[in-house]
């Protein structure tokens, strides 16, 4: 699901398993709760542990981009596995400049 770590003003959320419409709300809730209370300068979404993702994962990224922008922070999407690159590319998220 999701594990978070806060260090040097960076909140890192490491995502695990499959992200779909069923799983996305609980992931979103945990990340948003930590973002609101810790107000990080950067939020890193680490996809290295994600084995499957449909467009719910794209919604999750876009939503976190909006959330962290509201508090003046930046989003970075890191360690995207090769298997997810097709859907990430289709979404146009790379135009947000968040892919690292």
């Amino acid at each position, binding site marked *: 699901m999701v594990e978070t770590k806060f260090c040097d003003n960076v909140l890192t959320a490491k995502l695990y398993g499959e992200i*779909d419409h069923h799983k996305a709300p609980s992931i979103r809730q945990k990340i948003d709760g930590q973002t609101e209370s810790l107000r990080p300068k950067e939020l890193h979404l680490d996809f290295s542990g994600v084995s499957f993702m449909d467009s719910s994962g794209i919604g999750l990224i*876009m*939503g976190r981009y909006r959330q962290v922008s509201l508090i003046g922070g930046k989003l970075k999407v890191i360690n995207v596995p090769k298997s997810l690159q097709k*859907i990430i590319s289709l979404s146009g998220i790379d135009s947000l400049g968040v892919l690292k």
Partner: protein
Amino acid sequence: MNIINEMNLSFESKSSNESFARSAVSAFVLCLDPTIAELADIKTAVSEAVTNCIVHAYPDTIGTVYINVKITDQNKIIIKIRDKGVGIENIKQAMEPLFTTSSDERAGLGFAVMQSFTDNVKVRSKAGTGTTVTMEKTLYRTNYDKR
């Protein structure tokens, strides 16, 4: 083109069934020896279509989602995902990338993903009656045992 294998599946429109639906379809087509990328494409397209049924077809109720999968002797997979929900008033608009009627955090990419991850997508819908999404995908590295 002959159908050489077929399966039918129905389940309640609960979001917890999304992973079951995509796993069941991908397990059924495993006999075609798909590549990992082909299997991922099928799972993703099925997940999008089933999510549409759950979120849009049955917004305030639990209905039934029906899946029919056929395999042809030309290594084509035909997946039909059907509901008896509210239907789509304007199919053309619903299929436009980024269009969504959901207030939830939806990307509006469901049909775009289905179109990109399969070879062909057809949508038939009637308001108040339901929607059928038919997706076709041909696998190329296959050596199917037709017994």
